[in-house]
C-alpha cells in the first residue's frame, strides 16, 4: 500500500481517525527502526519486540508530534529512549569495545568470512559485518548518519547530546570501522578490488 502521502499528511489523517494509515508509516520506517534496535541486542526477537514497542509508543503519543522536526527524527528519539529503557529492564549487556563478547563475535565473523570467502566477496557484506564489530553507540551514529538521513543537528536531538559531540563521535566511529576493516577484512578488500 503506497498512499503517495508524505509523513505529515499521514499523521494528520491518523489523528483525524484514519488509524489504518499508520501502517504506511510503520512500513516506511520499520527497517530502519529494526536495524537500530539490532545494534543494541543481537537477538532478533528482542529487537523486534523493541521495534514494535517503539511504533506503539509513537502511535499513542502522535498528538505530541508538532511537526517542528522531521517525523523520522522524532521517531528515532523514541527508538533511542526505548532501547535504553529495554536494556535497563532486561539488564542486557550493551556491546562494548572492551567487552570480550565482541571479540568472540569478531573472531566468528572473521572465520566465517574466510570460510565463505567466495560467496561473500562483496563490499556490502564486508561493511555490514564490520559494523557488527563496532559498539552499539558507534554503529548507531553511523547508521543514523548514512541510512537514517539525519543531519548532525538532528542526530544531536535524537541522542540528546551536543552537535559537536555527535561530530566527534561520528569521526571516531568511522575511524574504528576503518580499523576493523583493516584488521579483519584487509585480504577480502584486496579480493574485492581484483
Amino acid at each position: 500500500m503506497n498512499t503517495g502521502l508524505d509523513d505529515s499528511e499521514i499523521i494528520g489523517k491518523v489523528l483525524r481517525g484514519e488509524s489504518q494509515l499508520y501502517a504506511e508509516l510503520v512500513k516506511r520506517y520499520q527497517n530502519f527502526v529494526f536495524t537500530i534496535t539490532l545494534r543494541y541486542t543481537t537477538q532478533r526477537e528482542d529487537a523486534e519486540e523493541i521495534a514494535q514497542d517503539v511504533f506503539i509508543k509513537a502511535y499513542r503519543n502522535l498528538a505530541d508530534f508538532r511537526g517542528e522536526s522531521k517525523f523520522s527524527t522524532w521517531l528515532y528519539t523514541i527508538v533511542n529512549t526505548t532501547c535504553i529503557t529495554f536494556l535497563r529492564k532486561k539488564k542486557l549487556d550493551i556491546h562494548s569495545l572492551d567487552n570480550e563478547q565482541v571479540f568472540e563475535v569478531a573472531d566468528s565473523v572473521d572465520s566465517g568470512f574466510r570460510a565463505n570467502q567466495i560467496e561473500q566477496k562483496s563490499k556490502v557484506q564486508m561493511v555490514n559485518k564490520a559494523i557488527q564489530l563496532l559498539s552499539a553507540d558507534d554503529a548507531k551514529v553511523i547508521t543514523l548518519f548514512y541510512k537514517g538521513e539525519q543531519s548532525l543537528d538532528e542526530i544531536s536531538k535524537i541522542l540528546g547530546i551536543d552537535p559537536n559531540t555527535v561530530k566527534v563521535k561520528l569521526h571516531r566511529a568511522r575511524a574504528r570501522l576503518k580499523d576493523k576493516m583493516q584488521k579483519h577484512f584487509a585480504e577480502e578488500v584486496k579480493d574485492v578490488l581484483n
Partner: protein
Amino acid sequence: MTYFKYSPQEDSGAGQPDMEARLWDYIDGNSSAEERGFVEKLIESNQQWKLRYQELLDVNQLLAGSLELDAPSLRFTKNVMEEISKYTIAPATKSYIDKKIIWGIAIFFFTMIFGFLVYMLGQIDWSAATGSEKIIPQNLKNIEWSKYFNNTYTNIFLMVNTILGLMLLDMYLGKKKKQLNQRHSG
C-alpha cells in the same frame, strides 16, 4: 579506489587526528569556506593529505553505498497494527499541562525560599558579630532547634509543603488510575 594504502602505523604524528577530523569535515561539508579552500590546497600540494583524503573518501563512499538495513519479520506491520488497535491516541501533553499552573507553582516556591531566607537573615544579630567565625556556631549541639520549629512561620511553611506533597501524590495516583481505566476500556 585506494583502500588502506595509508596505514595508521606509517604516521602517528601529533597532527594525525587533527588531519582526519579536518578531512572528515571537508568530506561531510561541515567546514567553512575558508577552511575548505585551505584543505583543498593541502590535498593538492601535500602527498600525505592527498592519500589520507582518498582513503577517507573511499570509506565514506563505502558507507554511503554499502550499508544495509535489516528487515523484521513479514508479519511485523500486521503485529503492530493489531497491537495499536487496543490503544487510543493520547491527548497532546500541551492540552493538559497548563503553563500558568507550572508558573504559579514556581513563583510560589521562589517566594517561599526568598521569604525564608529574609526571615533567617533577619534573625542574625549582625551587631554582635565581629568576624565570620562568630556567625557559625562553635558547637551544633548548642543550637536550640525547638526555637526554630516552634516558630509559627516554620510551621506554616512545613504545612503548606505537606499539602503540596499530598496534592502531587493525588495527581500521580489519579494519572495512574486514568491510565488503568484507558487500558481496560481500550
